């Protein structure tokens, strides 16, 4: 389901089918997380939960360019990436319920979604900690002559970590197939970019490592798609890593324990006017690509999927305590020598 760009970077006309696909994926993420808030209030979900609301265009626009042989490394704000990657809503919801049918058997929760089937390598809750891992995944693909691209998502806060700089350097030095996706939502928890970085031009930082880098409107799913297509084509062509800065915004608090003292309501409201789902839906309707009926059907489908996921999670079981120690080390009888 990709929307190819021609050699001049001009997008092909957007098909109704593809438009609806992009919209449906963003909507799945949005509605899923809205339910998560309710379930958190009802204490069905505990721990830290970091919502992606407002940033959906980045995961959807970027990841629809990836194929099954590519790999994804994400952060603790990764429900959207996991859903977009094809990890089932059921297994993600069950994970958040702490159930054994969850994608990580309930050992990870919201912050640690893992799924081998879709090459989804977490759910890393150490800021910057996923970047070296992505470098290694890409190194393995390259050494084995595989064509995979590793897409590594992280926030702009990670740019202050040493692991960011080391990873940029090593990926560029070894020309590794990594797509670095920096989702700049302006705040590292509560710390604004300008309060933590002497140089706030993030693409410039990446460029200093000889990594091709540019900024993208992260509130525009088509812009995200175009950027990712151009980037992955360059990476697959052997050009080494690409860094994309997606300028985006999270509409919700950092996590469930955030009184949001660091930003004004007006600022949040201003960004909400650029809601990636509302604006895309409106443009599709005005151009006649999507009808009101189609939108309503979409909402119903999404609601049904989420209700099914919740019912699945509710009915799912708890990991037996006698299994708690399993998988600390590989179970050789089950996995051979892996």
């Amino acid at each position, binding site marked *: 389901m990709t929307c190819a760009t021609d050699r001049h970077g001009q997008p092909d006309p957007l098909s109704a089918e593809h438009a609806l696909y992009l919209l449906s994926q963003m909507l799945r993420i949005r509605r899923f997380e809205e339910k998560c808030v309710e379930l958190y209030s009802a204490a069905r979900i505990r721990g830290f939960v970091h919502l992606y609301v407002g940033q959906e265009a980045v995961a959807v626009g970027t990841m629809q360019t990836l194929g099954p042989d590519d*790999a994804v490394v994400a952060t603790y704000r990764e429900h959207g990436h996991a859903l977009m990657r094809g990890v089932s809503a059921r297994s993600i919801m069950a994970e958040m319920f702490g159930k054994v049918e*969850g*994608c*990580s*058997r309930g*050992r*990870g929760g919201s912050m*640690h979604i*893992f*799924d*081998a089937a879709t090459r989804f*390598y*977490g759910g*890393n809750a*150490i800021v910057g*900690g996923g*970047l*070296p*891992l*992505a*470098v*290694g*995944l*890409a*190194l*393995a*693909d390259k*050494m*084995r002559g595989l064509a995979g691209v590793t897409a590594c998502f992280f926030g702009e806060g990670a740019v202050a970590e*040493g*692991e960011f700089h*080391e*990873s940029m*350097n*090593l990926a560029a*030095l070894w020309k590794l197939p990594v797509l670095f996706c920096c989702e700049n939502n302006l705040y590292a928890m509560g710390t604004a970019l300008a309060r933590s970085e002497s140089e706030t031009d993030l693409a410039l930082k990446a460029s200093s490592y000889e990594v091709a880098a540019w900024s993208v409107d992260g509130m525009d799913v088509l812009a995200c798609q175009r950027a990712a297509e151009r980037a992955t084509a360059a990476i697959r062509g052997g050009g080494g890593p690409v860094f994309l800065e997606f300028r985006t915004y999270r509409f919700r608090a950092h996590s469930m324990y955030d009184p949001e003292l660091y930003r004004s309501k007006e600022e949040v409201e201003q960004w909400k006017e650029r809601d990636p789902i509302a604006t895309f839906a409106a443009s599709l309707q005005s151009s006649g690509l999507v009808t009101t009926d189609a939108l309503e059907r979409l909402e119903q489908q999404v609601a049904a999927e989420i209700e099914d996921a919740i019912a699945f999670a509710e009915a799912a079981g708890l990991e037996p305590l006698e299994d708690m120690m*399993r*998988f*600390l*080390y*590989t*179970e*050789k009888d*089950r*996995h051979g*020598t*892996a």
Partner: protein
Amino acid sequence: MAPLETANAVMTYRDAVRAGIRDALLRDQRVFLMGEDVGRYGGCFAVSRGLLEEFGPERIRDTPLSEATFVGAGIGAAIAGMRPIVEIMTVNFSLLALDQIINNAATISHMSGGQFHVPVVIRMTTGAGRQLAAQHSHSLEGWYGHIPGIKVLTPATLEDARGMLWTALEDPDPVLIFEHGSLYNMEGELPADAGPVDIERAIVRRGGFDLSLITYGGTLRTALAAAEELAAEGIDCEVLDLRVLRPLDTAAILASVVKTHRAVIVDEGWRSGSISAEICARIVEGAFYELDAPVARVCSCEIPMPYAWHLEQAALPRIETIKQAVHRSVGGGRG
């Protein structure tokens, strides 16, 4: 596999480690070595000298001075099907990669519900005795032994230096190998076809009936030397080489103590909150009523390792301090 050559060869511990790496590179195309100055320089301690010429830069990879990222890259590459050997120059530098070792390597199998495995081997130099002062001399392998999800090996002999690596690479989980810096020049004989060894069990390096000297890594030689001198006095020490600090071979520790009824633990790490404390606790938990004397420990002084020769030597476990602890344990008149 029929041995190609059975004659013993005289070599150093360094040669044995190199032979182990070379064996692995020859046996398995997924194996590669990466780290600071492992290629052109030939390794900070000359362990990998000649390997770049033999195997090329794809498989002998010089890295930037980026411990967190090249260790993390080793973890990622391992998850994706490679068998990386990551070399860190010294244990003190490994602290720059702790995030990757502890938050990723040690957690991913369990936290992913067994979906992902991390068959990476991370080698590093450890220990004092070379006047390298406080940022190149510490013994933190026992401290790594605190971490569930990794395995911690301390080869103290040529046989283990060569043979543990292959077994570690075949292990589907992350393995850390600590090579004591003072051992690299140790000479010995090793069969030319010396093969893999287990990475699970402690080994009695010297049998005895009066007292168990429990040690590992760089202090094995010291403990054996002390045991020889004590034997001349009529004290017959058993010397147990732990070989593996996680998982600890508790059964071997208890078996030795049950036999001798006395234990002195020799550990180059610091005493407080240490692997020596853990061993002591396991003895007390598992063999308390077998003990004829309190368990004793000979550890490094609790200071950053000093540079001056006399200070460094005074800070480390030595034959004399081991003998003193043994004399106190066997009691009366000899110490």
